């Protein structure tokens, strides 16, 4: 087990990239703590899989180094890196039985038969496949096959890290939840470094202690689920995390005040003069409907999502989402107020830290 360091890493699929736009992965330096459970979250095509394949050595980065602990492994092939990776679509060895599939990574490393048998039994119990251990893998369903892939990824105890590349895509929702819980338990038990790639925020937030959000080939924020929710470092994080995403409103910020088209709101901190496109971000959870003083909105529609309702409204022509309690009466002339300390300020998509109040 080891800390994984990516140092000034960048990757392009073209042999001679001319400018930054041709890099699938923009230059980054990032440290994955030993024993951390990370989720790598981002929209499809943002470079998550590229990053994962660089860590496992399936891809050689165009520039930069990869370090496991203090060892530079950039030039080591996958086989020499002692890493486990589970892919998006099931990869099983069709002609082998389930048991042989699970034992395969251990056999290839020449482990003792007794140890292999014990380990396979343990993993089979974890993925709930004891009953079918002696069946050929070929005849199984897609989600059973994916469980075998997961099992093969977890069967080794001495790995540097376990990488999951959207592993639960083909698994049905109930099983998804259960497997994620087991992965989490496994992490607590063995303390492997785990990196879990997903585009599903629920998956990311429930699995990881640290969520790494990627956007357009760049890591835009690393933090706990709470940090990502309360203080998104980039408008993409605000929009991508949370359901619905953060409201972003064009504003002119002066000191502790933000002037919107529909009026002025108080901010939780003072801000210096800002360059570029300035917007304030406020979570729908922190927007309250009121009949008293506030900014006038017009309600477009109301979606009932069970625990609460989502009010889709417009504030001087800009869309704004509001989370309203179940049973809360909607005012006839609705106005909104923002919780000042929950407002984030963005200049050209990046969050600006306010000066202490």
């Amino acid at each position, binding site marked *: 087990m080891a800390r994984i360091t990516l140092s000034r890493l960048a990757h392009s699929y073209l042999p001679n990239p001319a400018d930054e736009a041709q890099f699938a992965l923009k230059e980054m330096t990032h440290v994955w703590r030993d024993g951390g459970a990370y989720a790598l979250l981002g929209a499809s095509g943002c470079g998550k899989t590229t990053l994962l394949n660089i860590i496992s050595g399936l891809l050689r980065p165009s520039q930069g180094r990869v370090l496991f602990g203090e060892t530079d492994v950039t030039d080591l092939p*996958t086989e020499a890196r002692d890493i486990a990776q589970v*892919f998006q679509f099931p*990869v099983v*060895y069709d*002609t082998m039985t389930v048991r042989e599939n699970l034992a395969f990574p251990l056999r*290839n490393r020449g482990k003792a038969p007794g140890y292999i048998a014990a380990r396979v039994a343990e993993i089979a119990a974890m993925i709930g496949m004891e009953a079918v251990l002696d069946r*050929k893998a070929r*005849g199984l369903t897609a989600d059973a096959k994916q469980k075998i892939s997961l099992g*093969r990824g977890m069967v080794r105890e001495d790995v540097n890290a376990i990488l999951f590349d959207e592993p639960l895509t083909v698994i049905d929702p109930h099983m998804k939840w259960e497997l994620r819980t087991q992965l989490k338990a496994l992490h607590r038990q063995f303390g492997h470094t785990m990196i879990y790639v997903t585009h599903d925020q629920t998956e990311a937030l429930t699995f990881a202690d640290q969520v790494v959000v990627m956007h357009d080939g760049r890591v835009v924020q690393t933090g706990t689920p709470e940090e990502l929710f309360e203080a998104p470092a980039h408008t993409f994080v605000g929009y991508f995390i949370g359901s619905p995403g953060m409201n972003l409103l064009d504003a002119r910020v002066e000191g502790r005040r933000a002037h919107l088209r529909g009026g002025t709101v108080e901010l939780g901190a003072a801000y210096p003069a800002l360059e570029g496109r300035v917007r304030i971000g406020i979570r729908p959870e922190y927007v309250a409907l009121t009949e008293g003083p506030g900014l006038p909105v017009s309600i477009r529609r109301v979606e009932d999502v069970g625990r609460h309702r989502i009010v889709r409204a417009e504030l001087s022509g800009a869309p704004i989402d509001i989370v309203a309690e179940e049973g809360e009466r909607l005012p006839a002339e609705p106005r909104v107020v923002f919780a000042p300390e929950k407002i984030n300020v963005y200049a050209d998509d990046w969050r600006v830290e306010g000066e202490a109040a």
Partner: protein
Amino acid sequence: MEKTQNNRAWFLVLPMLVIVAFSAVIPLMTVVNYSVNDTFGRNEFFWAGLEWFDETLRSERLWSALGRNALFSAIILAIEVPLGIFVALHMPKKGFWASFCLVVMALPLLVPFNVVGTIWQIFARTDIGLLGHTLWSLGIDYNYTANPLHAWLTIIVMDVWHWTSLVALLCYAALQSIPEAYYQAAKIDQASRWKVFRYIELPKMKGVLVIAILLRFMDSFMIYTEPFVVTGGGPGNSTTFLSIDLVKMAVGQFDLGPAAAFSIMYFLVILLVSWVFYTVMTNMDKEEGV
């Protein structure tokens, strides 16, 4: 639930049945007719019963041709299948050289059989042939027209040259259909090159290998044109395979009755062996699928 019966569908099958009748069934029946009659031409037939079958089954000639043919098929299968797999594994996967290899590999398959025979007949000649003359110049007493072993070697090398591409191309197609993730997973699992072949590539190629083996068996068991052009069945009878023998009997000697009986048994042998092959291979599949 009642199923609607609609027999009009048979009319759609009818044209195909008519074509098959004229192209296969009726000619075959003619052969059957010849095999149980004696004829001296002029459309006069005398019932002979199973006499021709009896005679053919007792004839040394049929059995030795069958033996030679079986040996030939076994040898070329033993060479072409592993060699084809080997070639397929080493062909480039993409880019210019992949297309280049495909075209080069397809060339021998496009050459008409008698031309293949002619090419090798000349190629192996010791006076003007590149191969023959080279061997002769190296001091090897190579002569495919006089030495049965040399005749065999020439024909086997020719067949390997002609048909290994088929096996290789079929395997190549199967290999191309393996998703990259399988190779990546094998690297993660630290599988050796042999294990990648054994557990990923071979299972994927199995389906096409069954087809390739069947095709190569049937074709080699029916081989006629190439050895006929190169050796004419000689020296002596050493490269006289079943087809060559059959043509000698039917056209050379005009023994239509025995030749027809021979044809029918020949046909049944190929049918039987192919059926056994196919059944065994598909059953292996089923057992594994459980």
